[in-house]
């Protein structure tokens, strides 16, 4: 990705009128460099003001920046230029729903569904149609539509997708594995996961900044780090590893191994002191050990 960004960057510097700004802006958006992505997209839009993809890119960056007004403006332009654009319909449906305009959400999603947007949108539409209170919240919390997945290429056609994904953070069942660490997390920005040796989620939940459950994705990605750590430990002769902590521009993350290759992952906002994060990791590790020891039940 870094190589791609460098290459696209060079290409754009060489030819400012190139459409490569679309790929560069999207890559930067996916990396979370939203301010830079927006600048790239807006510069491209200045030269390609009738380019549908450019307006769509600006809209998706705007959603990631929580600038819904700008996103709506851009997607409305997209639909004027290309009335059958599924990504714009889904995006406007998503924002309408977030803003409580269920009639508008239904209208946009219905258009998207009619246009062949796939099972996920059809299911979301059904949920919106029967939405009231909790059901609507469940849809918003589900993975069916996310602000990062509004482009057409991410439309899911999986017929097994369910509309019944409820918001696990609102579950009251104390035996719900997703609530394994719930009482240990004292801040909205804190999140914790227990992964098995293959990176599959055993317990806990990882919510992103939008309140979406991204546990499986995060688990699968971070599991690879522990494999690399184990490999390094074999060669460095500094004993078994106890934990790894890393700071990114978005969060602080700590991980510790458990029995049978399991892994506890905790994350918190960038502002969280590392010492506090380590204490949280210790407490979650103890909870995980006791939960695993009890065969997957609260002991």
């Amino acid at each position, binding site marked *: 990705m870094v190589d791609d960004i460098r290459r696209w960057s060079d290409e754009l510097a060489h030819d400012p009128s190139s459409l490569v700004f679309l790929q560069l802006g999207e890559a930067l958006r996916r*990396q979370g460099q939203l301010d*830079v992505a927006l600048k790239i997209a807006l510069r491209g839009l200045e030269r390609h003001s009738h380019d549908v993809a450019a307006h769509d890119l600006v809209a998706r960056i705007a959603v990631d920046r929580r600038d819904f007004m700008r996103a709506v403006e851009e997607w409305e332009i997209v639909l004027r230029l290309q009335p059958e654009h599924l990504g714009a319909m889904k995006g406007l449906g998503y924002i309408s729903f977030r803003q409580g305009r269920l009639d508008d959400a239904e209208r946009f999603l219905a258009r998207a569904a009619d246009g062949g947007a796939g099972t996920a949108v059809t299911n979301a539409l059904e949920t919106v149609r029967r939405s009231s209170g909790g059901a609507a919240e469940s849809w918003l919390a589900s993975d069916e539509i996310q602000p990062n997945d509004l482009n057409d290429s991410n439309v899911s056609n999986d017929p097994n997708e369910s509309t019944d994904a409820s918001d696990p953070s609102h579950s009251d069942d104390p035996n719900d594995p997703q609530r394994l660490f719930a009482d240990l997390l004292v801040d909205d920005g804190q999140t914790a996961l227990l992964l098995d040796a293959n990176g599959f989620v055993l317990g806990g939940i990882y919510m992103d900044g939008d309140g979406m459950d991204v546990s499986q994705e995060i688990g699968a990605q971070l599991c690879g780090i522990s494999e*690399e750590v184990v*490999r*390094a430990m074999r060669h460095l002769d500094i004993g078994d*590893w106890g*934990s*790894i902590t890393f700071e990114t521009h978005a969060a602080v993350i700590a991980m510790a191994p458990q029995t049978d290759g399991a892994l506890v992952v905790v994350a918190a906002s960038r502002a969280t002191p590392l010492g506090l994060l380590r204490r949280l990791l210790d407490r979650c590790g103890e909870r995980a050990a006791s939960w695993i020891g009890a065969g997957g039940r609260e002991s």
Partner: protein
Amino acid sequence: MSVFTSTLEALTRQRGVRASLIVSESDGLIIDARLRYGQDGERVAALAASLYRKARLSASAARLGSVAFLQLDAERGRICAAGRPLHWTPDGAIGSDLVIVVVADPAANVGLIRMELLKAVETLA
């Protein structure tokens, strides 16, 4: 003497620091290092670079942003690493594939090492 000499010496002066290295993340080769007697710098460099790279790629794939600091705690030692990953700004691509790595005793003051590392990473081109 290299341009990194003072940076590495400042890091190595920290209590409990066994080695400090500047490593190329892409190939794991040492650019410069200050090692205590008996430290296998090349092995540390290769493994630390690989670990940092894996953490950076995983964090990026998980949309957590780029890794600025990493700390690995083990029974008989600690590894800390910091880098300035390549990223795009309106002025062009900036950053570096260089990573500063510190190997320290388990009892070393990680808070101080982290501060020194983050300061040192600013000196990377």
